[in-house]
């Protein structure tokens, strides 16, 4: 039987502790390198873009001259597109989540709905663009490159995210709340809409904001439905040709003129600022209203 204080055992232990430290350092390095990448990315954009960020840039429209080009037409296009997406995806997503969580019987149809929602959440975004192109533009003849078609396409993409977040939020509401409402004579529908839904709403809103933030940064599906036109006037309504902020970044990044490097970076700062603000609101909502039952 070997003694744990023998030189061999001590050496062995030393080796094991060294391996332990190496492993821990590797983990730290992985995180630090990822953070460094993030820092370099943000720093590059700030360095290139911050001097181009002024009121004229925020309120101007696209132009062939980099000094006069601004982001307002693209921002307005983004706002209109997001309004369409929200108006379609939020009610649909919440209603579908309620049905699947509270009313759905165990049947093959419902299994199919669940499978398609889980898969849709992982389908590449460009495929939604192909769907939008084939159905909304070629079959339904809706106006090309309009916020309406863009918003509808993104709504199909965002809905599964909202459904999944909504189901989790509804699932987290304890059954005792439902039992109490049913016991005093509320119907199933009243129970859900008067008691379960208000309690689940913060969770649903958090999921919705995260889904909308993803939709706001999306470019590929909008490329498919032709939202890459040169738009020098802000769109007046949801059927006018328009651009969106990520698309404006993409179009400017393609320009040969060096002046557009500053514009592209400045537009990226605007986009990242909005996205970080949206995610901040989502985290705030989650922390403020999260109830542990």
């Amino acid at each position, binding site marked *: 039987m070997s003694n744990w204080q023998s030189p061999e055992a001590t050496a062995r232990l030393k080796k094991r502790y060294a*391996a332990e430290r190496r492993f821990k350092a590797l983990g730290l390095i992985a995180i630090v390198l*990822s953070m460094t990448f993030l820092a370099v990315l943000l720093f590059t954009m700030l360095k290139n873009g911050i001097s181009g960020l002024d009121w004229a840039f925020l309120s101007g429209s696209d132009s062939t001259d980099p000094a006069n080009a601004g982001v307002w037409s693209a921002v307005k296009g983004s706002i209109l597109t997001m309004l369409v997406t929200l108006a379609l995806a939020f009610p*649909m997503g919440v209603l579908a989540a309620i049905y699947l969580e509270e009313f*759905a019987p165990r049947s093959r149809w419902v299994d199919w709905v669940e499978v398609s929602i889980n898969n*849709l959440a*992982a389908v590449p975004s460009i495929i939604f663009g192909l769907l939008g192109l084939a159905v909304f533009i070629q079959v339904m003849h809706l106006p090309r490159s309009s916020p309406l078609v863009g918003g509808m396409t993104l709504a199909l993409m965002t*809905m599964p995210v909202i459904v999944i977040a909504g189901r989790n939020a509804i699932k987290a509401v304890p059954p005792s709340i439902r039992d109490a409402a049913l016991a005093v004579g509320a119907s199933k529908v009243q129970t859900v809409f008067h008691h379960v839904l208000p309690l689940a709403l913060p969770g649903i809103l958090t999921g919705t904001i995260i889904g909308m933030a993803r939709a706001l940064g999306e470019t590929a599906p909008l490329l498919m439905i032709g939202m890459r036109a040169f738009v020098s006037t802000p769109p007046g309504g949801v059927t006018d040709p328009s651009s969106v902020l990520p698309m404006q970044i993409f179009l400017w990044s393609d320009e040969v003129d060096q002046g557009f490097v500053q514009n592209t970076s400045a537009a990226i700062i605007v986009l990242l600022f909005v996205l970080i603000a949206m995610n901040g609101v989502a985290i705030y909502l989650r922390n403020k209203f999260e109830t542990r039952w």
Partner: protein
Amino acid sequence: MPITFLLICVIGLGVIAWAMSRARSAHFAPVAGKLKLALPGHYGLYAAIWTVVPALLVAWLWTFISPGLVHGAILADPAAASLPAFDFERDTVLNEAFALAQNPDAFASNPIAQQLAPVIAAAQSKFGWMGAALSLIAALAGGSFGYTRVKAGFPARTRIERIVLVALLVASFVAIITTVGIIASLIFESARFFSMVSPIDFLFGTNWTPDTMASATSDMGDDLGAVPLFWGTFFIGAIIAMLVAIPFGLMSAIYLTQYASPRARSILKPMLEILAGIPTVVYGYFAALTAAPFIRDLATAIGITNASTESALAAGLVMGVMIIPFVSSMADDSIAAVPQAMRDGSLAMGATTSETIKKVLIPAALPGIVAGVMLAISRAIGETMIVYMAAGASANLSANPFERMTTVTYQIAALLTGEGSFDHPTTLSAFALGLVLFTVTLILNIIALRVVKRFREAYE
């Protein structure tokens, strides 16, 4: 059709019906020995639904009927007699006239179109108002019917709830309709493509030189062999990106779950998640602006001649960084799902933390981690903007990461944003590529989701 006017009227009528029915039901005397069947709000809602829904239904149907009526009115006009007899010319003139009727400043070269424009405008306005009137009649009729049903014994609550249930059911079927829509549109357009180009040429050909202007002849298949695209996609998304994402994602998950203090974790994890929230177009721009020139200089420094600015490596590396948080959170979940008892047992036997992780936690969490990697691959191969901006357009069957390479997603985007007509096989090949991409990601997702589910059940 005067849509705004109609909407305001219909909603106004709905509100009136709601208020009247609500007021009426408020005075119902309780029926002796019976429970109340509905609240005043239910009666109000019931009448409002009967007002609004039929009206909107009529308006919607009218949008299908009225173009035919407008068309008939135009043909009956004397100016239409001088329309050219040939279908194509006739359609051109009519289209010009319609555009002119919509917008008086529109360009119209044909004098007949200018003559017809006012006729069209008049007909459109006439039939528009006719539709609005019909719709309002439907609103009034429906509203009156709903109002007459508001009686003491009428179970309005049950009726309303039945409608609510139907709405819930319809909403949840949107997901299925979307899936079916994706599959149907991809298969339909791909079938058109495969009727012109043989699937064997497409799936196994190694030469990809699409030309949307070439005449559609029978040897199109020689230029549309997609193997270089599949290789580029696989090389960038499943090899280079994963070489970055798997070690970094896994190690950061291990550090965050096993070593970091709760305080450090609460700061580091959201920061790592910022990486996942950055739009892909920003990564693409960063890859093209900073990463690609850096890699070109690196290639030149290690002695590779004619290194290009666009390279598979630049796109793959940046894509890998984008995927890190995804792999990390999947690994995080899988490790957290391993029962605490297994970890405690290993530590109690005298193993160090790293030994426990390597010998116990990772083997136990492996199915979940593998599923996470599969989902990550499915994400990487469907990613468009990074490769569009950094990987290049030339199809290249090569294992050299410093060369330009193109991917399935790049070609879909390039073919459909080009000037090609939608009947040309080269343009249609984008849908066939989409079908391949969809199928592959679907298989990856289904297997991964199944593994995750089974893995969770194993430890529950």
